[in-house]
């Protein structure tokens, strides 16, 4: 009963363990996913940072290039205009105007480009610059289209209008340049912030992954320890259960032996004796009645025959249950009787070489007797042996026992019937060792060694 309770306890403990396995799998999966997500995120953000950095630098470069083009366009157009004004030759002047027109085109293009590359918020100085530049163009246009302009306006134009406007424009360009630089540095700052954020993100991810990993490790260790202790408990339970089973079977064997002895004795001493008495009384009765009553005599004879048959049955039953010589005279007479019986019954030749052993305990006598009985039974039934040798020898601290037949043998390593197990159990219970040596075609030897304290 106690065994069964313990086993069911064990079974109940399996539930949470199965849940733990699922939890563990989920945990490991989650950790892996977390690590993948963190890695992918970091790579993504880094790529973003790199591309936005390149973009910022690219637009700054474009802006500066465009602005310096605008600046050089303004300078060049001033120089070309001056050359135009100063040139005496008409054809040279024409060429200067054409040159200026090309410069103006280029400069306009650069202006548009820089406007495109600049943040719309900073568009105001650029618009004024554009207006200034248009004014400037208009002025230069007017100069270039005026016939003989070289003569009339040269001095005033050069010293006044042109220089003034140019200076204003250049200062505007400088302002735009500053804005552009500021934009670059603000881009850098933005980039730094993004970087910081990325760092924080990676740090957080790392922390999360690490703590998840730690938790998982802790859970795994806890679970392993629990499984280990569970296993240990189970193992101990198994050992204890086996021990209990062994004790139980030993108790069963001795109880069975006691029962047999009691029944055998009861049959012999009570039933057998009563039947014998009955027989005699029947004889006495027959003797007391008048001798001419043939009827009564026949009945009495019938009673006697029945009683005689019953006595014989009782006698055989008694001996089969437990031979009385085992208790009355000891082991050797019992073994010899057993040998004679087996020999008579099966035709197998049974030789007993047993020494009358001094003061053997009842347990030892019974054990040896039953082992020999079972072995002889096997020889006759399974081995188809023709002759068997039973040997019992007493040594100072032990008893050696062997039953050797010339039968067909069997594979002792693989086959082990219930009979052999029973013999082994009996021998083991008395602290002895049990051995079966057999091989197909080579006979069987069953041997045991029992320690005895005398």
């Amino acid at each position: 009963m106690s065994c069964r309770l313990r086993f069911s306890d064990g079974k109940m403990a399996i539930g949470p363990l199965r849940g733990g396995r699922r939890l563990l799998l989920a945990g490991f999966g989650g950790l892996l996913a977390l690590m993948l997500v963190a890695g992918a995120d970091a790579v993504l953000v880094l790529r973003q940072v790199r591309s936005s950095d390149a973009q910022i630098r690219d637009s700054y470069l474009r802006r500066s290039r465009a602005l310096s083009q605008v600046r050089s366009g303004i300078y060049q157009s001033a120089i070309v205009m001056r050359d135009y004004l100063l040139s005496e030759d008409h054809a040279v002047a024409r060429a200067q105007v054409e040159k200026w027109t090309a410069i103006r085109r280029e400069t306009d293009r650069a202006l548009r480009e820089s406007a495109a590359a600049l943040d719309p918020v900073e568009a105001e100085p650029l618009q004024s610059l554009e207006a200034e530049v248009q004014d400037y163009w208009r002025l230069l246009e007017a100069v270039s289209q005026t016939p003989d302009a070289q003569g009339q306006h040269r001095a005033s134009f050069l010293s006044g209008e042109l220089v003034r406007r140019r200076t204003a424009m250049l200062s505007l360009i400088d302002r735009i340049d500053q804005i552009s630089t500021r934009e670059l540095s603000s881009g850098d700052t933005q980039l730094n912030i993004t970087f910081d954020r990325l760092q924080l993100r990676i740090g957080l991810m790392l922390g999360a992954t690490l703590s998840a990993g730690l938790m998982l490790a802790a859970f795994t260790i806890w679970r392993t320890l629990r499984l280990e202790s569970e296993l240990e408990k189970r193992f101990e339970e198994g050992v204890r259960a086996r021990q209990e089973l062994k004790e139980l079977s030993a108790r069963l064997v001795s109880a069975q032996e006691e029962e047999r002895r009691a029944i055998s004795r009861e049959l012999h001493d009570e039933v057998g004796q009563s039947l014998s008495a009955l027989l005699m009384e029947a004889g006495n009765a027959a003797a007391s009645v008048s001798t001419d009553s043939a009827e009564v005599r026949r009945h009495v004879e019938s009673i006697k025959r029945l009683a005689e048959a019953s006595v014989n049955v009782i006698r055989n039953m008694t001996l089969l249950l437990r031979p009385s010589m085992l208790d009355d005279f000891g082991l050797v007479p019992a073994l010899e009787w057993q040998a004679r019986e087996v020999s008579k019954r099966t035709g197998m030749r049974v030789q007993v070489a047993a020494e009358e052993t001094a003061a053997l305990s009842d347990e030892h006598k019974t054990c040896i007797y039953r082992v020999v009985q079972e072995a002889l039974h096997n020889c006759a039934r399974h081995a188809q042996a023709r002759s068997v040798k039973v040997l019992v020898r007493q040594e100072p601290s032990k008893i050696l026992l062997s039953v050797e037949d010339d039968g067909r043998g069997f594979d002792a390593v693989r086959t082990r019937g219930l009979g052999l197990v029973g013999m082994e159990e009996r021998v083991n219970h008395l602290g002895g060792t049990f051995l079966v040596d057999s091989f197909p075609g080579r006979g069987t030897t069953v041997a045991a060694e029992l320690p005895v304290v005398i």
Partner: protein
Amino acid sequence: MEAPTRSIRIVLADDHTVMRGGLRLLLERQSNLQVVGEASNGREAVELAASEQPDVVVMDIAMPHLNGVEATRQIVSRSPDIAVVILSMHSDESYVIRSLKAGARAYLLKDSAEADLIAAIHAITEGKSFFSPAVRRILKEDYVHQLHEMGAEDSYELLTNREREVLQLVAEGKSNKEVANLLSLSVYTVETHRTHILQKLNLHSVPDLILYAVRKGIIS
């Protein structure tokens, strides 16, 4: 009419009252048999035998306190003249041999008591041995079986005619002196014959010899 000889005094030893009652009835129907005491265990039997000094003790084997074989040994060793008849349920030779070695002169199975007990008592008071037919048969069968098994020679063939005569008389319970008288030999010669017989048959004692004779069917 012949004057009755002194009646045979008998002690019964059996732990079953009914059995003892039956036996007493059986025995006392004979005019020359007299039951002088009943014992219900081995110890009582030994005491009764000592105090009553009967001619015959009819003894069961399975008894409390002291079994019949041991009780027989004690009675015979104290009073060799008391003849013990074993009356038992056991038919195995180990019981027969041990009873004989303990000094019993007859061995009967209880189921044949009614038929054989009177004959057995008369036989043993004349110094002979007696065995139930069933016991004789078992002993003989076992012996023949064993001889057959061992493939042994029948050692009886080794004996001379004179030795066979001596064997039969000794087995019947005669003393050396009686044998000497019967065969007109000196006691010393009988003694020598006995020694030879035991040697040739590989026997060690008179009970062995009796058993051998029963097995061979020399005596009954």
